[in-house]
């Protein structure tokens, strides 16, 4: 066997790192095919957080005692891991937030409310998760700007040939990978197009960061939003990367402790980056967990994860295509992440998901927080199976068998 064809990732072995798989559901081992909603957590992440609580916990950036300094160091070590993970020029460009949604809201409020007005165009896409759609729609309405959408073709890929016709675009906000149908967008081209017009480019990388190397400098983006929970980190933490020159010129988003330089009755001045955007007590243990998750993914290698997912997506598309009555959505396997969205003729996705649950197979059924996309596809909801480093081909066989069972039950 040639070296290039060696599997780089042993999913069967990696599963042992995830305590969740020690349980069974309805008497069956768990086939967790809902990673696009949230990834499971390896022991390494859970233990890093426990150890932090047991040995290093205090509030950060406050005390002068040794324990507080240890906690602060742990938080800042995590920030440095994030910086390296996305190849940011400086750790001060990394702002910890609750999730990608909060990161995008930060930009929409702090940049959008102060830089948009009537005659300006805010451009998102039909493919967006509500997290990168609703904040921009809202800010456009508040400022009198126009809210426009880049359309999709029938395969669920962006019509970049339509890019000429949007007027005075000031901000372009798109996802890098679609959470609903797996489309991988050409973010670098969108960033370049935005910059030619003097617009900023905001990239929702929540679904991309667990699967492909996100290099913020190579992308040429101005802001990149990421959630920790989708990349094996804990819930309750994510980060915004932003270009320092833009962050420096922006108003803060949340006001309160830690984000100030000086407070008087007459006036408050803002702190340095990143403190200016991190009001209140930080998600400290969560940051430590996120750092541990990045270490875990780096040790496996994002390239190996990406390759593994592509292989699984191709296998799932092949298996599902053989089932009568199944409609598949999204681009071909080589242009999608490990996400497969589908419908079974005459069977509502909730019913498909319920039948699969009885077999211990967990998939998502619904609109995936992408109602504009569902409208474009002409459906109310889809079934979505998503794969990760711990997914094994046998689980896709169980998925296909369950889908067949559902189709028969409702025939």
């Amino acid at each position, binding site marked *: 066997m040639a070296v290039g064809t060696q599997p780089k990732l042993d999913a069967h072995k990696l599963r042992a790192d995830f305590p969740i798989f020690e349980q069974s559901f309805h008497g069956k081992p768990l086939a967790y095919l809902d990673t696009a909603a949230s990834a499971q957590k390896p022991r390494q992440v859970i233990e890093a957080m426990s150890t932090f609580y047991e040995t290093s916990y205090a509030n950060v950036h406050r005390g002068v005692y040794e324990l507080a300094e240890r906690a602060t160091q742990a938080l800042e070590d995590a920030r440095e891991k994030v910086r390296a993970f996305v190849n940011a020029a400086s750790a001060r460009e990394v702002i910890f937030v609750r999730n990608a949604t909060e990161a995008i809201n930060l930009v929409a409020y702090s940049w959008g409310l102060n830089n948009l007005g009537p005659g300006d165009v805010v451009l998102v896409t039909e493919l967006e998760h509500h997290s990168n759609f609703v904040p921009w729609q809202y800010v456009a309405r508040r400022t009198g700007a126009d809210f426009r959408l880049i359309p999709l073709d029938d395969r669920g890929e962006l019509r970049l040939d339509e890019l000429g016709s949007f007027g005075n675009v000031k901000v372009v906000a798109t996802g890098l990978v679609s959470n609903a149908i797996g489309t991988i967008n050409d973010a670098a081209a969108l960033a370049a197009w935005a910059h030619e017009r003097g617009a900023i480019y905001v990239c929702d990388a929540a679904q991309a960061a667990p699967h492909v190397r996100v290099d913020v400098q190579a992308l040429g983006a101005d802001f990149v939003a990421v959630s920790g929970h989708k990349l094996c980190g804990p819930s309750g933490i994510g980060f915004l990367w932003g270009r320092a020159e833009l962050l420096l010129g922006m108003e803060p988003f949340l006001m309160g402790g830690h984000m100030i330089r000086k407070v008087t009755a007459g006036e408050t001045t803002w702190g340095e980056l990143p403190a200016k955007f991190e009001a209140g007590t930080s998600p400290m243990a969560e940051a430590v967990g996120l750092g541990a998750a990045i270490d875990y993914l780096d040790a496996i290698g994002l390239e190996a994860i990406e390759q593994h997912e592509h292989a699984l997506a191709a296998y799932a598309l092949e298996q599902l295509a053989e089932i009568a009555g199944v409609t598949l959505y999204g681009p071909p396997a080589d242009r999608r992440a490990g996400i497969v969205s589908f419908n079974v003729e005459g*069977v509502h996705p*909730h*019913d498909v998901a*319920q*039948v699969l649950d009885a077999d211990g197979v967990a998939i998502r059924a*619904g609109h995936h927080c992408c109602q504009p996309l569902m409208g474009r596809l002409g459906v*109310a909801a889809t079934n979505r199976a998503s794969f990760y480093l711990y997914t094994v081909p046998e689980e896709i066989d169980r998925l296909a068998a369950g889908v067949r069972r559902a189709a028969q039950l409702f025939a």
Partner: protein
Amino acid sequence: MTDDLYRELILDHYKNPRSYGVLDDADARAEGQNPLCGDEVTVTVKFAPDGETIDRVGFEGRGCAISQAATSMLTELARGRTATEVATLPKEELLDELGIPLTPIRLKCAILGLGVLKVALHRAKGTPLPDEWQGLDFA
């Protein structure tokens, strides 16, 4: 468990819904959605000449088997009762009819049609609308 959930009666109502189609001469009408799964139901009611008794119920919808079968069963439960009786009909009566164990998420599917019917009666007859259904009365 699946076989319990999708027992023959439910599959029958799903595949052959009773009283399907909105009534052209309806006296009461309401629509509702379940934002979790996109289930949609429209319920219409025609009263008997006494203006109180439900003579006919017609519904249309799209959604999962549980929501559509439950609404189909509901049209049979409601016929011949007064608006006031249906307005105070406990959801347990419909759930008994379904006769399956439901998780909290699927419970919302099962009682969507009932809530929409109660909203329709509330609008047409001013019958009381309990708190749990008020979210559906947005029109």
